[in-house]
C-alpha cells in the first residue's frame, strides 16, 4: 500500500512539476534584470495553448518529423520513472536501470536530431549537429559520475546509488561527491541547453542549439517537445538534488517537501547562472564539457587510488 501511494506521488510530481521549473528560472532571471517577468505558471499556459492549436508541417517532412516529437517526449517520460525522487525506490527500478536511463535520453536525442534533419533546413541541421556533438562529451562525464556512485554504494540501481545511504558517504568521500556534483551540474546545463552552452531565449537562429532544432514544429507536436524538454530538466535536476541532499528524515510528509524545495533551489541556481554568465563561444563549449569529464574522472580516481 505504501509503495502504491509513494509511486503515485512520484508520478504526479514528475509529470506536474517540470513546467514549474521553467517558470521559476524565468522568474529568477526577470528579478535579476529588474523586471516583473511572466507569471510562474506561464509554461503551463503555453503548453495548454499549444495543445489546442493547429499545425503546419513542412512539405519536405515525413513521418520521421512527427516521430521526433513523440519519441523525445515518451523517452523522457519513461526516464522520469527510473530516478528516485525522495529516499525510497523509483517506480521502476532494477539492476542496470542507470544504463537504460542514459540510453533512453539518447534515443530521444537521435529522433529529435533526425526530425531536425528531416526538414532539410540548414539551421536545423546545424542545431542537430551541435546537439549530438556536445552530447558526445556530456555522456562520459555522466557515466564517470555513475562510476563514483556505484563504487560508493556497491549498487547498480539508481535507487540504491542515490538512496539515503549516500548521506553517510558524504562524510567519508565528500571530496569525490562534491566533484561529481559540480560535474553533473555542468552536464545538466549542457543537456538542457542552458547558458553558458546555449541561450534558450536567443533570437538568432545561427547561435542556437536546441531551439533551432525545433523551429519547424508547431501546435501539439511542439507542445510535446517543450514538455519533453521540461521533463528532461526535471530528471537532471532530480539527480543533482538527490546527490546534494541525500539524507531523509524518514517521514514521507517531510521527505517530499524537502525534495521539491531542493528542486526549486536548483531552478533558482540555474536562473542565477543564466543571469550572471554570458553564453560561451561555440568553440569553447567542448572545453567546459571536457572539464566536466575531468572533474568526474578525478572523483573516481580519488576513490580507487
Amino acid at each position, binding site marked *: 500500500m505504501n509503495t502504491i501511494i509513494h509511486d503515485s506521488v512520484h508520478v504526479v510530481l514528475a509529470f506536474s512539476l517540470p513546467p514549474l521549473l521553467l517558470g521559476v528560472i524565468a522568474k529568477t532571471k526577470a528579478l535579476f534584470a529588474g523586471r516583473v517577468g511572466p507569471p510562474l505558471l506561464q509554461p503551463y499556459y503555453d503548453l495548454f495553448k499549444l495543445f489546442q492549436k493547429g499545425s503546419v508541417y513542412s512539405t519536405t517532412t515525413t513521418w520521421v518529423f512527427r516521430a521526433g516529437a513523440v519519441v523525445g517526449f515518451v523517452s523522457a517520460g519513461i526516464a522520469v520513472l527510473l530516478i528516485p525522487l525522495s529516499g525510497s525506490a523509483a517506480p521502476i527500478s532494477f539492476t542496470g536501470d542507470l544504463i537504460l536511463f542514459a540510453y533512453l535520453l539518447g534515443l530521444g536525442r537521435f529522433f529529435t536530431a533526425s526530425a531536425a534533419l528531416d526538414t532539410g533546413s540548414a539551421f536545423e541541421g546545424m542545431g542537430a549537429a551541435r546537439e549530438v556533438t556536445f*552530447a558526445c562529451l556530456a555522456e562520459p562525464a555522466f557515466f564517470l559520475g555513475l562510476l563514483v556512485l556505484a563504487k560508493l554504494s556497491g549498487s547498480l540501481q539508481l535507487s540504491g546509488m542515490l538512496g539515503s545511504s549516500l548521506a553517510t558517504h558524504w562524510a567519508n568521500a565528500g571530496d569525490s561527491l562534491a566533484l561529481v556534483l559540480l560535474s553533473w551540474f555542468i552536464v545538466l546545463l549542457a543537456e538542457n541547453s542552458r547558458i553558458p552552452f546555449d541561450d534558450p531565449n536567443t533570437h538568432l537562429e545561427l547561435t542556437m542549439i536546441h531551439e533551432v532544432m525545433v523551429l519547424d514544429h508547431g501546435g501539439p507536436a511542439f507542445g510535446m517537445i517543450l514538455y519533453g524538454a521540461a521533463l528532461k530538466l526535471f530528471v537532471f535536476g532530480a539527480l543533482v538534488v538527490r546527490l546534494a541532499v541525500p539524507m531523509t528524515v524518514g517521514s514521507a510528509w517531510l521527505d517530499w517537501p524537502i525534495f521539491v524545495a531542493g528542486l526549486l533551489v536548483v531552478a533558482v541556481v540555474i536562473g542565477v547562472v543564466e543571469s550572471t554568465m554570458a553564453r560561451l563561444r561555440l568553440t569553447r563549449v567542448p572545453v567546459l564539457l571536457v572539464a566536466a569529464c575531468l572533474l568526474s574522472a578525478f572523483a573516481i580516481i580519488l576513490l580507487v587510488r
Partner: protein
Amino acid sequence: MTELLVVLAIGICASSGVPGLFLRRDSMTGQWVTTVLSVLGAALGIGAIFAFWATGLSRPIALPWSIPGAEFDVAMDGLSAVFLMPIFLVSLLGNVYGLGYWRQTEHPQNGRRLRFFYGTLTAGMALLVIARNSILFMVAWEIMALSNFFLVTTEGHKSEVRDAGWMYLVATHVATLCLFALFAVLHVTNGSFTLVASSQRAGSSGTAAAIFVLALVGFGLKAGVMPLHIWLPSSHAASPSHVSAMMSGVVIKMGIYGLMRVTSFLGAPSLEWSAVVLGLGVVSGVLGVVYAIGQHDVKRLLAYHSIENIGIIVIGLGLALIGRSLGRADWIVLGLAGSLLHVWNHALFKALLFLSAGSAIHAAHSREIDHLGGLSKSMPWTSLCFVIGAVAICGLPPLNGFVSEFLIYIGLFHTLGSTGGTSFVWAAFAVPILALIGALALACFAKAYGAVFLGTPRSEHATHAHESPQSMLWPMGVLVVCCLVIGTAPTVTMPILGRAIADWAPGLGDADSILAASAPIGRVGVMGLVLILGTLLGGIALWIRNRRQSVERGTTWACGYVAPTSRMQYTSSSFAQMVVGLFGWVLHPTIRKPKDFPLFPAPTSFHSHVPDAVLDFVVLPIFRFAAWLFSWFRVFQRGNIQAYLLYVFLALIALLLWS
C-alpha cells in the same frame, strides 16, 4: 546427427553456384537454381543448429585424411553453434537479396562467379567453426579467405576495386602466416593438431605469450581490430552490398571466433595479456567510430562502424579474459555473454544496414552521402529498415544492440567491486569510453540517416529513385524482426549463450544462473516493450489531436526565405565537422577551403578528406621502405627459366651437403 546435417548443409552451399556456371549468361535460370539450392542448404544448417540447441546432442565425425597430422574432424559445441547461426542466416538472406540487387541479366559478366564464391564462402566459414583439427581449420580458413577475395573483386574492371582486393589479399595472407605459426607452436607444445580444450595446454609462459601474440595478430587482422584494420574499409566499400553484409556481419567474426576458440583452451591467461585485449577493444571502439564520422562514402562509413563494433565485442572478450585471469565468474559470464550476443546483434543490424544502404545505392546510383538525400519519400520501406538498423547499432533501446551493450556495461561496473584482494578496477574506465562510443555512434548515424534519407534529394538520380523490389525488402524485413525479437525478448538467447560460455570456460559452474542473478535481462525486454507501446500511444495521441485541428502544409522555415533549395541543406560534412575537429589530433583531416574571398567572388570549392592514419602514415611508408630495401634482390630475379632452374639445383646441393 547435427554434425552430419551441418556437413550436408555445407556441401549444398558449396555446390550451390556450380549449376549456374553451366547455364546461359543472359538468363535468370542459373540464379534461381543457385538461390533455391543455397536457401535449402542454409535452412538445413539452421534447422540443425536448432536441433542441437533443443537436444544438446553432439556426435562428432572423425574421418581419416591422407595429409600427415590432418583429420576430417568436426564437432558441434555451444560456441560453434553461436557462430554458425549468423553464417547461414546472412547467407540465406543475402542470396535472396541478390535476386533483385545483382540480377544475372544485368550483370552477365560476373553474376555467376559472384554466386559461386558466395556459396563457397558460406561453406568455408561453416566448416571453419566446426573444424576440430587445425589443418582442417586452415583449409577452411583459406577457402573462406580466397572466396572472399574473389567476391571483393567482383567488379575487377574498376581500379579501386582491384586495389582493395590486393590489400585484402595481402592482409589475409599475413593473417594466414600468423596462424601457420600459431598452430605450429601449439603442435610443438602439445604434439597434436586437435583443437579440443582437453588436449591443449599453454606450456611455459614464453610459449603462452607466443601463442597469444600470434593469435591476436592473426585473428585480429581478420576481425579488423584497430591497428590491423587497414584492409577493411576499402574492401567493404568495393564489394557488392550483399557481399559487404556478409563480410561485415559474418566474415570478420571468424577472427573473433578464432580468438575465442584459442583462448578457450589456454587456461587462465596472465592479467597483462587480458588487459591488452581490453585495451585493443577500447582503441578499436573509439577510433572506429571517430573515423566513421569523417567518411563521405556510406559504405566506408558502415565499414568503419564494423571496426567500432568489433571493438565492443573485444571489450567484452577482454573483460571475460580478465575474469579468467583473476578467477571472477561474474566478469567471465557477463563479458562473454555480452560479447557473444553482440556478435549476433552486429551480424543482424550490420547486415540490415548494408542491405538497406545497398538498396538506396541501387536506386540512386551513388555511394556519396552528399549526393543522396530525401530517399525517405521515394523509398519508405528501405528508409524504415535503415533507421531501425541505425537505432540498433547505436545501442539504443528497444532494439538488440542495447541488450548486448547492457551486459557488457554491467560486467564492467562489476569490476568496481573487489573481493579477497582480486580486483582490477581500471577495467571500469571502459564504462565512460563505452558511453563515448555510444554517443559518437549516435552522432554518426544521425548524420548518415539524415543526409541519405531525410531532407530533399541532392542529385538527379536521388530525385528519381524508386523503391526496391520485394526480393530485396523481405530479407531486410526478416533482419528487422530478428532485431526486435532480441531487443524485446532477450531471455530467449540466454540458455544459448549460457551453453557457449560453459564451453568456453569449463568448470565455471552454472553460467545461466550467474547471468540471471547479475543482469535482469527480462526487465530490459519488458522496458523495451513499454517503450514501443508508449511511442505507439504517443503517436496515436498526436494523430488524434492533428485530426481534430487544422493541419496545413508549408515550406520549411528558412528565416523568411521562401524558396529553399536542396543545396541549402546542411551537408553530412558540415554535420560531422565539429566532431572531426574535436578528434583532429588523431584523424588528421585534409581540408581544402577557399582562402579569401575577393571583392567579386569567383566560383570556388571546398574539399575535405579523412585519410586512414594507420594505412597512410604507418603501413604504406613501411612497405615502401621495404620495397626499396629489397630492390637489390632483383639481381636474382632474371626472368629466364634457366637461371631459376640453376637456383633450384644449387639449393638442392646445399641441402644435401648440409644434411
